[in-house]
């Protein structure tokens, strides 16, 4: 047994309801190294990490830590093995101080066993200084920027003497300066003998920071690289494969003189996105792609008036929208499919009929004030059938449908307001392949009928198959606009990561 290996995951196989997501995957972490784990969406890297975290339990395979086989039953078990996880969504107590967050549950006490605020603050300061971080240990975490909160979370692992630290997409919300600091911290952690598993989509970051890289593709090991002996292209090929993608669809053709439906001019919201310029014509399908934190969702929400923005203009049919509000946007024939289907897409306990007519309920009124049930039934029936929703009938509650069918109902809800601009944020997340292709067909039909469709997505195939052009977002700014027909998945991956 190699003395140098601290975490050894051997032949890990995992399946969800018969669907194998990991097939005999191996992953070894050596003492004091930074080992990156890469893969496209759905390649299985987060599943592998969740197994190490005790959230999932593998069907077969073993995990050894320091050469001893371990059985990690729940996240609570990981601390005893010296494992610490820093998740993308940060777990901080915003009304406590920086020092208190770093020593959460590990309180420094004085001789009498009382919590010692001064000593906690002093020890936190020592650690912050050693790591070269200039944050006031007595500041409330509420007042920190996201990048600083993340630093606190990373340093928290050191106060617990973790030997292995797993960092999940730690650089996605950092700017260049912050990223430099982050790399310094990682270096210092290495010097202290901490081993690091680094999960990231950002190719440059991975190349800069890693001693080794393991790439997963479709649930199997598909490449192992050692620092200095690989290029960005090697990583892309390992993640995506060499196959060229041929779309079955014809590329959308837009009439040159088709009117512009939406134009954004220098659209800016501090810390979220900057100087976004884009145009979309009637009948066009345009994609906006980028990694998590690139600003896709933020732009979609700001255009629809769900969040505020700082400067720039929204022009709808050439008319400036000063203060967009969801109700005003709907009035102006704009629809938004939000990313969070379960939270914002539908009312779970209401029927398909009621959900489809949710935003146009005013139009369902009969002669008096009351809703014309028959009109509502006809409308919902027609849309549900058009969308091919698999249901026992339109009275079925939406919560009892499968994810793909729920999404079809939500799209039906949006389309039933007859939008001329349809914004979709991650329209096929958690939707099976068959439902996906049906959703694409529906969107194409809508575009043919003249609706302008703007898809915000991190699924590259989806954009390549359906869009005429793709706008690439990086850290809240447009870094390029490409024609989908001239792109392969590999090219696109290289551009966004």
């Amino acid at each position: 047994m190699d003395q140098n290996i601290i975490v050894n995951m051997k032949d890990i196989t995992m399946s969800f309801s018969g669907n194998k997501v990991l097939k005999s995957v191996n992953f070894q972490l050596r003492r004091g190294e930074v080992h990156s784990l890469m893969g496209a969406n759905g390649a299985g890297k987060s599943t592998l990490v969740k197994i190490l975290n005790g959230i999932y339990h593998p069907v077969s395979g073993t995990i050894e830590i320091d050469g001893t086989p371990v059985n990690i039953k729940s996240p609570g078990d990981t601390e005893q093995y010296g494992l610490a996880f820093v998740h993308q969504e940060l777990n901080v107590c915003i009304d406590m101080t920086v020092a208190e967050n770093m020593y959460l549950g590990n309180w420094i006490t004085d001789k009498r066993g009382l919590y010692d605020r001064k000593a906690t603050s002093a020890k936190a300061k020592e650690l912050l200084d050693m790591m070269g971080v200039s944050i006031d240990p007595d500041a409330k975490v509420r007042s920190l920027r996201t990048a600083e909160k993340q630093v606190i979370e990373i340093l928290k692992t050191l106060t617990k003497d973790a030997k292995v630290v797993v960092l999940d997409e730690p650089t996605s919300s950092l700017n260049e300066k912050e990223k430099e600091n982050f790399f310094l911290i990682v270096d210092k952690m290495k010097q202290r003998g901490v081993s690091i598993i680094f999960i990231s989509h950002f190719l440059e970051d991975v190349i800069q920071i890693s001693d080794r890289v393991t790439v997963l593709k479709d649930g199997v090991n598909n490449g192992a690289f050692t620092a200095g002996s690989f290029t960005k292209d090697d990583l892309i090929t390992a993640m995506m494969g060499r196959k060229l993608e041929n779309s079955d669809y014809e590329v959308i053709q837009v009439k040159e003189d088709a009117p512009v439906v939406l134009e954004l001019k220098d659209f800016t919201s501090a810390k979220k996105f900057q100087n976004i310029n884009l145009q979309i014509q009637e009948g066009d399908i345009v994609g906006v792609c980028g990694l998590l934190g690139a600003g896709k969702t933020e732009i979609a929400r700001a255009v629809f008036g769900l969040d505020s923005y700082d400067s720039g203009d929204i022009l709808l049919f050439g008319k400036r929208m000063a203060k967009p509000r969801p109700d005003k946007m709907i009035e102006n024939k704009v629809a938004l499919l939000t990313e969070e289907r379960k939270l914002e897409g539908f009312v779970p306990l209401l029927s398909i009929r009621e959900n489809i007519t949710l935003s146009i309920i005013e139009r369902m009124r009969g002669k008096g004030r009351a809703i014309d049930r028959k009109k509502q039934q006809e409308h919902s029936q027609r849309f549900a059938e058009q969308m091919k929703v698999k249901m026992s009938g339109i009275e079925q509650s939406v919560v009892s449908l499968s994810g793909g069918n729920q999404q079809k109902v939500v799209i039906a809800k949006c389309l039933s307001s007859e939008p001329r601009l349809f914004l979709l944020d991650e329209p096929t997340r958690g939707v099976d392949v068959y439902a996906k292709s049906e959703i694409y067909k529906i969107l194409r039909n809508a575009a043919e009928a003249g609706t302008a469709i703007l898809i915000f997505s991190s699924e590259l195939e989806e954009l390549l198959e359906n869009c005429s052009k793709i706008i690439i977002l990086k850290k809240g700014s447009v870094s390029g606009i490409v024609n989908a027909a001239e792109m392969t998945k590999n090219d696109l991956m290289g551009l966004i990561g």
Partner: protein
Amino acid sequence: MQNELKKIRKYFSEDAVRLGIIAVFLIVMPFVSPYFLKTKNIMNILQNISLQGITAIGMTMVIITGSGGIDISVGGVLALSVWVAALMMKSGVSWVLAVAVAILIAAFCGMVNAFSVGIMKIPPMIATLAMMYMTRGLQTVISHGSTLNGLPEQFQYIGQGMVFGAIPIPAILIVLLYIVAAWFMNKTVTGRNIYAIGGNPEAARVAGIKNNHVIFFCYIACSVLAAIAGLIFIARMDSAPATVANNLEMKAIMGAVIGGTSVTFGGKGKMMGTFLGVVIVGLISNALDLMGVSAYYQQFIQGALVLVVVFLEAVRTRREARRS
């Protein structure tokens, strides 16, 4: 030195709204009534707020635990435990034993509340609503709507005794309990854990804190403090009416909320704030009494005041958030 000043200013800025309101009372009221600033009146105010004030300590702890933490059973738990104690004293049992039994009953009720909330994961509002009706129900059974008087002299001393001839014991107790509570919340490991689980239960769990231990502690403390407040109250009045502590839960919540405890997010609130909140409520009713305003108006004015303070707080926090 400058750092110290900054700290002091920061400390008081959090209580700016409350200290401002109290300052207004201190400046205006002496013109309305010369009696207002007399030691006797101030002691009177402290004595009057001791019931809801001591209850509000536990309420604040429970609200800080977050996840909808609240305890609306305090009035019922108080009523049941002091009635059992009063009946025991009337039947000749030693008052010390009676007090101990009252506290044990309260602790048991608090434990049941914590079990429902922490282990059965029942929303605190519902769990303590059930407890409120059970305890009120039992108290109604044993009290038959009557009032008990004539408690032992020694017991009465807890509520009526004076120290240095001018300071009533309830006034000392409420101040003392707040000092201990503030110390506890800031200086002990359990106190810090309460803020941690309220601020982010998931982070606390990952950090190895036993969230349920903290929840048990807080709900039991809340019930026991209510019982202590009730015992002091019946000792002061030498009377345990059937309607004792009616609406107490709402008054305690009001004190905590005026004090800046957040019922929306856990992990936010301070004993000092709650104390000032309770004092403000006490000052209003005292001022209204001195001005001869009918008791009928007092509820309305108190309610309006809650709204004003909460509005001002919201404005202040929004400003603070914008600044950072």
